[in-house]
């Protein structure tokens, strides 16, 4: 539990519906903001988000146990990811914020979902006995966010939370909530 968000593990019918809703909204946004000219989103923040959501939706169906997400108080899925358990760390293959969090002035938009999902994944890593250790691949535009969270780039080009940096992140989150 994350106060503002509920953690979701695994794909069920509700998650399938949530992801279908994300996809339908993306189609609506393309019409509203891009005149249905799909080529205008290629290589943009929104385009990257769509491509990652497409992967998440496919993985959530093919491997339901790999899905993770956070829902807000209204029950709306606000961020989602796909994870795999490695021998001593949690591998985060994909992370996406809801499409309305990308575009300006959307009524469903909510800050904090990506951070909340990362917090839950660190806690899951702790529960698994991995000491909070997790790794992900950060696309260039995402690096600043993950660096600000406290992840560090590895020699292989991945980004990781070590037990110490994961603990520091969780402590900051606790401090933030106590304010």
């Amino acid at each position, binding site marked *: 539990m994350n106060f503002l968000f509920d953690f979701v593990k695994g794909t069920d019918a509700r998650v399938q519906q949530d992801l*279908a809703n994300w*996809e*339908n909204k*993306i*189609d609506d946004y*393309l019409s509203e903001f891009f005149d249905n000219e*799909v080529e205008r*989103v*290629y*290589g943009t*923040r929104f*385009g*990257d*988000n*769509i*491509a*990652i*959501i*497409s*992967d998440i*939706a*496919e993985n959530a169906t093919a491997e339901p146990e790999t899905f993770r997400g956070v829902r807000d108080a209204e029950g709306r899925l606000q*961020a989602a990811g*796909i994870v795999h358990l490695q021998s001593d760390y949690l591998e985060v*293959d*994909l*992370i*996406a*914020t809801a499409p309305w*969090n*990308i575009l300006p002035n959307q009524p469903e938009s909510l*800050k*904090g*979902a*990506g*951070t909340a999902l*990362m917090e839950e994944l660190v806690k899951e890593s702790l529960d698994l006995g991995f000491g909070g250790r997790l790794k*992900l*691949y*950060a*696309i260039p*535009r*995402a690096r*600043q*966010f*993950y660096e*600000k*969270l406290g992840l560090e780039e590895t020699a292989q080009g991945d980004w990781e939370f070590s037990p*110490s940096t994961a*603990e*520091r992140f969780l*402590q*900051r989150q606790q*401090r*933030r909530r106590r*304010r």
Partner: protein
Amino acid sequence: MSEKLKKITDEEIAQWQEELYELERDCSTGKLGTTKEQKQKIDSLLARAKARKKED
């Protein structure tokens, strides 16, 4: 490390949160593949959405 963290003030925590929230729109990440693969992923998603809307 806890000692080190205690030295961070509430204001610094507040600033960290604000900066985090500013960057959070870019939290979506994963291996995107080539430009062609990205386009295929976007097209697949849109095809699913349009088929769903047609059914409704």
